[in-house]
Structure formats: structure tokens, C-alpha cells
């Protein structure tokens, strides 16, 4: 019973540490929160896709050996492009406000009164030593700018860069498989396109939607 109580106390302490960490890290950085939860979303949806393949009895082991690394590659493209682009945008938004490049009249007055030098330098932080109402204004303004920039970054990465990269990857994979199949079956039917339906079972037909889906990545953005 004591062991159970100790374990419950430990779990409770860890949970409180986790909550306090979230409050401290994301409470004043909503843009950073959007980036991190976005990355977590991609990781979880990719993991779910891989898990679905692993536990699917209808997919032969040979195909699994191909599909699982392919899902990982697709996930890497999604996560990397999302993180790099969205994080860069968010960072630029934060830096513009922190360095004093982008200000409200109230913040400008504060900067002038405090005679803060090197406005616009990336090492400058106008919020250092800021308190009270001005700090409140700064945090709200920085939060808003940060959200706008991270949203712009996520639109660019999720809706433009990722689909383009994924289509290119899908087309490349299709060609590779087709070339491989054609080479293998060249003596029988040299001029016909083939796609793989089951391992070692080649059917002569044009490229199909199932092939496209297979190589265009099946990740559902959550």
C-alpha cells in the first residue's frame, strides 16, 4: 500500500512539474506553442500511420518492409518542412518585436525614455527590465505578432511546400518501381507499363490511384 501511495505521489509530482513547465514555457509564447504542438501533431499522426501498417495483417511482410520506411520518409518531410519554415517565421516575428524593429506607440515611448540603443540589432531585447503596464502591452503585442507569423509559416509549409515535395517524391517512387518492374519483366512485355499489386504479382495496367496514394503519403494532418 505504501509503495502504491509513493508511486501515486511521484506521478502527481511529475504531473505538476509538467503543468508548471507548460505554463512557464507556453504561457508567454503562444507562437512557440503553435509550432511545438504542430510538430507533435505531425509526429503522432505519422506514428499512427506506421502503427496501422505494422498491425495490418492484410499487408504482406514484404510490402511492410517497403511501406514502413516510406512512411518514415514521408513523416520526415512533413515534420522537417513544418518545423523549419514555421519556426523560422515565428522566430522572425518574435525578433522584430524584441529588437524594437516593430513597436506600438506606447512601446516606442518606453524605448525612447529608457534610451535603449541598438534598436533592430538581433541581440537587443527591449523587454529586459520591463515591468508593469508596458510589459503587459509588450507581451500582448509580441504574442499577437508571433501568432500571425507562425500561422503564415504553417500555411506556407503545410499547404504549399509539403504538397509539392510529396508529389515530387510520389512521382519519383512510382518511376523507380515502374523501371524496376519493367526491367524484371522486359522479355515478356517490353512496352507495357506495370504496377505492383501484390509481391511478385505484376498486372499490366496504367498507373492507378492506389499506387498514387501508396507513394504520395497517406498522412492525415491532425
Amino acid at each position: 500500500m505504501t509503495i502504491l501511495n509513493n508511486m501515486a505521489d511521484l506521478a502527481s509530482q511529475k504531473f505538476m512539474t509538467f503543468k508548471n513547465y507548460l505554463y512557464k514555457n507556453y504561457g508567454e509564447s503562444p507562437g512557440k506553442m503553435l509550432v511545438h504542438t504542430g510538430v507533435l501533431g505531425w509526429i503522432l499522426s505519422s506514428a499512427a500511420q506506421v502503427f496501422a501498417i505494422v498491425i495490418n495483417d492484410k499487408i504482406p511482410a514484404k510490402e511492410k518492409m517497403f511501406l514502413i520506411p516510406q512512411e518514415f520518409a514521408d513523416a520526415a518531410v512533413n515534420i522537417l518542412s513544418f518545423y523549419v519554415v514555421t519556426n523560422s517565421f515565428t522566430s522572425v516575428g518574435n525578433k522584430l518585436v524584441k529588437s524594437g524593429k516593430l513597436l506600438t506607440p506606447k512601446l516606442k515611448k518606453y524605448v525612447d525614455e529608457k534610451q535603449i540603443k541598438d534598436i533592430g540589432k538581433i541581440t537587443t531585447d527591449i523587454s529586459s527590465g520591463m515591468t508593469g503596464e508596458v510589459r503587459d502591452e509588450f507581451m500582448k503585442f509580441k504574442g499577437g505578432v508571433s501568432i500571425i507569423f507562425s500561422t503564415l509559416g504553417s500555411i506556407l509549409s503545410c499547404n504549399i511546400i509539403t504538397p509539392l515535395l510529396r508529389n515530387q517524391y510520389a512521382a519519383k517512387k512510382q518511376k523507380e518501381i515502374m523501371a524496376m518492374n519493367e526491367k524484371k519483366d522486359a522479355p515478356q512485355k517490353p512496352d507495357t507499363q506495370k504496377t505492383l499489386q501484390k509481391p511478385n504479382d505484376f498486372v499490366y495496367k496504367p498507373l492507378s490511384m492506389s499506387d498514387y496514394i501508396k507513394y504520395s503519403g497517406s498522412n492525415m494532418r491532425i
Partner: protein
Amino acid sequence: MARQAFYDVIPNKVIESEKLRRGIAWVNKEISTPENRLILGATALMSQPFIDGHNKSVDENTRKVSVCRTIAKIVAGTFTGYFIRKGCIKAIDKWSKLPTSVNKAGQKIKLNRLNTLFSPSNAISDLSDAFMQYKNALGTIVALGVMTITNFLIDAPLTKYLTNKFVAASGGLKHDNSK
């Protein structure tokens, strides 16, 4: 140095327009992950079907199904993504009360184990922006866990259903030998 050169190109700006300042303050207060998901969904509808529709490396039927599937995926993903995030944030809000929390009548809320389940110990006021952002963050994390399951239970079948509807509505496939 290159980073500084990039920032040097951007001119210093003081936002004089009160409307714009109010807009930025509104974004900070009102836009979080559910709204972000809605914006992503709406802009995805404007860009992704166009990208898939111009993918010359696949045949016409595949292109058509691909566009329909992309639209279906966006609609299903945005629908579940928005409502699950919103619901989880609401639940976290209900169970994250602080000593400063009051009900709609303005009376102090009696704290118990359940309504403080997700309350951090380092938060001072429930009215602060930081506390609101904390609830959004935790609600989103919980929502992501929930969506890992609903991704299969709702999104995948809904995407399949909508894809078939959209393909049929767009006149079906020319050569149905790809099935």
C-alpha cells in the same frame, strides 16, 4: 552576420493605426490552435487541390481522384481538428480553476480535486494571458492524443466517403480500369 543583414533590410516601424493594433491584440486573445487549424484548412482548400490538379506525373483519372481525396481529407481533418481541439480546451478550462476563479455570478468557485486537476501551481491569476495560453497548450496536447485515435475512427472513413461523393459529383472516372 547574415541574420543581422536580413533584419537590416526590414525598416523600423511603429504601428500607428489603432485598428491594426486592436487586430493584433485580438489575434493574441482569440486565435489559438483550433482557429489556426481552421485557417490552415481554409487556405489548404485554396492551394492543395490546385497543386494536385496540376500534377502532370500521374494520369488524368488519378489526378481527378487525387484532387477529390485531397479536398475530402482537408474537410474531414479540419472538421475533426477544430472541434476536438475546441472541446479539449474547454474541458481543460473547466478543470483548471485557481483561487482567483469566479463563476458567472461573480462568486468565488469552491476548489476541489476535479476542478483543479489541470491547474499549475505557478499560476497567479486565471485572468492572465499566460494562464489562457497555458490552457490552450494543454488542451491542444490532450486533443492531439484524442485525434491519434479519431484519425482512424472518424477522419479515415469520412475521407473515403467524401472522396467517393466528390468523384461521383465531378462526373466519375473516364476509364475505371484503375480500381
